[in-house]
């Protein structure tokens, strides 16, 4: 089943560098995996960690945030904020049990169409290997009252 699985990856790209880079990949007819849907934002500093959690909750298998290289941000230090935010988010995702390959922050300039191609292909392969995230299933939110009799676990003296 994982064989046929085509991951859904959300790309959140900043307008000035990374989105232009993705455009370049397109106009240069570079071939990359069709699994990513891009949302354009003015700056990676606009990316609220809420967007990313929402993406997973709504069915994304992976999220790629891309912005200008530090020092090149159109708004000077917008992406300085992105770094801290995304690093805290990465720690949180790990605590929620979301594999680290499902989230990626990349610096992609307007000239780096090939980088878009490489990153998207690599991420698609990695997420494909992991399989669907399927958070609706994970959160069992509809499944109120889902419960089983507590089991004696490995360490439990009941099993000895």
């Amino acid at each position, binding site marked *: 089943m994982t064989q046929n699985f085509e991951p859904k990856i959300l790309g959140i790209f900043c307008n000035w560098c990374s989105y232009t880079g993705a455009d370049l990949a397109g106009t240069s007819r570079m071939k990359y995996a069709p699994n990513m849907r891009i949302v354009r934002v003015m700056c990676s500093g606009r990316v609220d960690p809420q967007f990313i959690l929402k993406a997973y*909750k709504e069915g994304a298998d992976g999220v790629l945030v891309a912005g200008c290289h530090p020092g090149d941000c159109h708004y000077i230090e917008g992406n300085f904020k992105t*770094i*801290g935010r995304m690093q805290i988010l990465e720690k*949180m995702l790990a605590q*929620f049990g979301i594999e680290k390959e499902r989230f990626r922050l990349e610096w992609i300039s307007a000239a780096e169409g090939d980088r878009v191609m490489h990153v998207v292909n690599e991420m698609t392969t990695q997420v494909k290997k992991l399989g669907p995230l399927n958070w609706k299933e994970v959160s069992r939110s509809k499944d109120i009252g889902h419960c089983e009799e*507590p089991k004696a676990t490995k360490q439990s003296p009941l099993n000895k």
Partner: protein
Amino acid sequence: MTQKLKVGIYWAASCGGCEIATLEIAENILKFIEVADLVLCPCIADFKYDDVRAYPDGYIDVCFFNGGIRNSEAKEIAELLRKKSKTLVAFGACANWGGIPALANLYTKDAMIERSYITTESNDNPQGTLPQTSYKMPEGELHLPKLFDSVHKLDDVVDVDYYVPGCPPVAKQIWSCIEAIAAGKLPPKGSVIGVGDKSVCDECPFEKKTEGVRISKFKRPHLEKPDLTKKAELNNKPQCLLEQGFVCMGSATRSGCEAQCLKANMPCRGCYGPAEGVEDQGAKIASAIGSLVDSQGNSERSAEIVAQIVDPVGTFYRFGMGNSMLRVKKL
């Protein structure tokens, strides 16, 4: 005289603090009993579930429901009280979003039971006895509530009319809610009541906006004291605790408590829940704190600073796990 209000107070997965907080309305209790009769309150009076079952539907005018939905008993009583109450109020952090008990959503139920009944250092359980839902005795079979796999908020199981947040709600706000109910002056159904309309920062005695401040070291309030001599540039108030490096949830948290923790020099832990317009309190505070990290555009430098934030999920969703976007851990 018009009929007295019939009020119910119930606890589900709760610590009892919400009832104690209600008693903090102090001398107003005398005014309360002038206008209201308690018809259910397991914390202080001996009502049986069968008494409640015998009430006609809609008999209880207002039911303050505290605690989350952790087991089959809580769900059953929530459904019963919904039927018997004209107005059902989710009272306190646990009923609103699962509260502290919902942090268990980061573990499996089995792991939690094992920790509670087997491996806790102070346990004395050589037989490894675990809670069971039925037990055969000579006198017959006993049935006990079933523990659910995760903790739910009240409105996951029943329709809720009003939300009063806080862990626990502060007495002044509780009284303002009771007055509003007694006077029949309630906002539209679904409103959060007994709160302010801004964030905790708005009521806070500390001050931000010291231009260009960045955090290069995170501090923990039980290990370090805030520096009250540091003043904000804007005015002469002491400098914001977050800017000083203490994780403070104030900016993502709804006002209403009059920033009582801050007045005791403690950072806000977020018990009044997401501020207006905030969907996920934890992600919002990650955004606010992340933007203050002194990364200087350097990922390694930033990573070293971020590594000092201990347990971000447990801290940012201390009260709100049951209401967070992800809600549980993927296992």
